[in-house]
């Protein structure tokens, strides 16, 4: 048994490919926990960042700087009365949130946090992610219909129409990126070398970028950039976030498809929404931004730079610890704040400790990939919040117009041009 467990450590594939169920299970648990923490952190960060964009403070009461607010919210949601409308379709009403969570979490099986840090590497990686996340639409439709009420129904209709339309543009952009895995260009755009076979596997896509010495966002300039742009717009629409948050437009439809949901069931939708955001960001990072690869792999080469970049994870945590300590210093000295001050100090100490651990050579080499991947995903998360703070909401017909008349033709154009450029130029 022990051999079975340790044997994987020497292999350099994902547990899924190595056929090691134990480690696959460990990875699944880790990803699940990591995602939950990420969603909780996102909840806090979104409120804080949005608040600071809007000249206010955001949560400040529960814990130092409202750090415990998401936990308080979670407890509130769990102990809330779970209301099911009398006229609702019980079975479907019950299934919808379960389904939305399952689809939102299943996609993370193939997300590559590093060359070996994924549950498994599927031959159809991207296709799997797009396919399973498209099942989320079903859950939304089910939720809207089962509520048996006008607002959720319209919300669900809007939502599904929107997701189905944007999926097409999204798919075209993805195909353009996949084409790039096999076409490394000759002459004008010729960069690096590759195996020449295209692939849908998430890990292979990143490896192709490594071999070609170019993130796909910069490849066949500006084609990669345009494809990335299409995906970046479509993914916001796909996750129903501002400025495409019509299904949940609270000024029009109160809360869209989950109007009738409350308590725990509602929190499942919330969880799914945020993990879906992380999932599509992960696709974008994998396809265009070099996945787990560190920045500037071409220019800043050599051992020194490798060392510098490998220090990043630890330094980031130490920086967070410093921020926490500064916050501790600036806490009011009144005895009323003693617990909060201690809590923040302790939090800072934990962060600092993690930072120090991450600086140790054996750890920092393994953690680097995960760090860069998460860092890039986090940048997308910030963008999501930024959009929400800046943009008004599209109207439904305008949204459809953008999807079908702008993004779709652009996507087709990029796809064709990528093929032409890859083969001829």
């Amino acid at each position: 048994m022990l051999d079975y467990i340790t044997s994987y450590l020497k292999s350099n594939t994902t547990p899924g490919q190595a056929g090691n169920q134990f480690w696959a299970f460990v990875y699944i648990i880790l990803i699940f926990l990591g995602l939950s923490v990420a969603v909780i952190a996102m909840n806090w960060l979104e409120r804080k960042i949005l608040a600071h964009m809007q000249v206010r403070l955001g949560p400040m009461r529960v814990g130092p700087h409202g750090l415990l607010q998401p936990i308080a919210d979670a407890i509130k949601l769990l102990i809330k009365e779970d209301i099911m409308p009398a006229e609702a379709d019980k079975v479907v009403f019950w299934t919808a949130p379960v389904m939305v969570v399952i689809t939102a979490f299943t996609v993370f099986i193939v997300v590559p946090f590093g060359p070996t840090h994924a549950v498994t590497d599927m031959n159809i990686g991207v296709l799997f992610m797009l396919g399973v996340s498209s099942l989320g639409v079903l859950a939304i439709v089910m939720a809207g219909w089962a509520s048996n009420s006008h607002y959720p129904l319209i919300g669900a209709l809007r939502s599904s129409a929107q997701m189905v339309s944007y999926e097409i543009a999204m798919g075209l952009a993805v195909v353009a990126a996949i084409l790039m895995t096999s076409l490394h260009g000759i002459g004008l755009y010729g960069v690096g070398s590759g195996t020449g076979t295209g692939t849908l596997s998430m890990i292979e896509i990143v490896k192709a970028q490594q071999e070609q010495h170019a993130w796909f966002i910069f490849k066949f300039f500006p084609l990669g950039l345009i494809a990335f742009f299409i995906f970046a717009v479509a993914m916001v629409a796909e996750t129903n976030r501002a400025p495409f948050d019509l299904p949940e437009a609270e000024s029009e439809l109160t809360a869209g498809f989950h109007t009738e949901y409350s308590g725990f069931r509602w929190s499942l939708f919330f969880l799914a929404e945020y993990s879906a955001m992380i999932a599509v960001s992960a696709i974008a990072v994998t396809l265009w931004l070099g996945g787990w690869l560190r920045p500037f792999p071409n220019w800043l080469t050599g051992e020194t730079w490798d060392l510098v970049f490998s220090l990043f994870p630890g330094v980031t945590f130490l920086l967070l610890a410093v921020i926490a300590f500064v916050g501790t210093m600036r806490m009011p000295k009144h005895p009323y704040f003693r617990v909060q001050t201690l809590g923040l100090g302790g939090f800072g100490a934990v962060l600092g400790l993690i930072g120090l651990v991450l600086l140790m050579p054996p750890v920092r080499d393994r953690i680097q990939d995960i760090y860069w991947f998460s860092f890039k995903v986090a940048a997308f998360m910030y963008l999501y919040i930024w959009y929400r703070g800046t943009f008004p909401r599209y109207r439904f017909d305008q949204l459809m117009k953008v999807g079908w008349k702008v993004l779709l033709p652009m996507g087709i154009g990029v796809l064709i041009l990528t093929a032409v450029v890859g083969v001829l130029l």
Partner: protein
Amino acid sequence: MTDGSTSTTSHLELEEHDKTFLDSNELIINMGPQHPATHGVLRVILKLDGEKVLGTECVIGYLHRGVEKIAENRTYAMFNPYVDRMDYVAAVSNGLGYCEAVEKLLDVKAPPRANYIRVILTELNRLASHMLWLGTHALDIGAITPLFYTFRDREEILKIFEKYCGARLTTHAFRIGGCLYETYEGFEQDVKKFLVFVAPKIDEYEELLTTNRIWVERTKGVGKISGKDCIALGVTGPVLRASGVHWDVRKAQPYAAYSDFDFEIPVGQNGDTYDRYLVRMAEMRQSLRIIRQAVEKIPEGPIMAKVPKVIKPPVGEIYHSIEAPKGELGYFIVSDGSTQPYRVRVRPPSFVNLQALDVMVRGQLVADVIAVIGTLDIVLGEVDR
């Protein structure tokens, strides 16, 4: 208020099998009275074909407090604070209109200094009202950030009100015959400081919205209404001016000290939501201009005219209107010679402007209803009174 077909249709009267989309029959939706975008307790019954609006019917009265009836049982001075509760975001304007109407009835003229104070406070209030409108309107269209910016800046105005008369919202700043309070120490500095503070803030709002593609797409061509329709429906204020009609009571029938100042009336062309937005933004700048002139030119002197202790206007009737932030606010007061008015009728701009909702949204989409309600800038306290 509509063509009758909507006003008689209620949800219950529809046949059971008509309640779906696919039969391309109408769907009746109640927007409000508890709806985040109806700015209070307005209930709009929407008749929809899919997302297209076939007709609307406004159900109002949820906030009815019988303000006009109360007036008949109060003396003229006692009724003064009640008017603040109509358009509570522009309470100063309400008070000004009422005081001036009674003054006209009494044939009393407020002293010049009082008039200047009145203009400064009213224009500050116009700014506050427009800021609140901008924040909530943008929020309705989905831009959540401007709301906080405008509230931050509106706070400065409310601080000045608080320092002047002790109240922030329902100020009761003026009395019949002038003002009760002399300006406080440093009032002028405060106002001047505010002017310097707020001018770049208005640019900031515009930066966020005016050229924002989504904002333009959401507002251009939405809720169009022609100047002719506006006049036919009695619509006034920025909504009327955005449709290209050059009408502002401040210029047309100057009251208080408005004839002393140099300012322009911003006028739109298309009469759509975007133009109304631009008109209001320009109006905010013009208000700043008026306040600046008023603060500079404010004369010394008494602030209260000679008004008898017991106000007993002669028998007669009077209509006096002012330009409130939302449009023409008129008071029609009938006096029977006693200490209490025989009848007070308020012509609230919000109520009259709300009539235009149906004309503006017919044939447009549900999302536009929200935008149009926002752009009409209604306050339900004033609609229902």
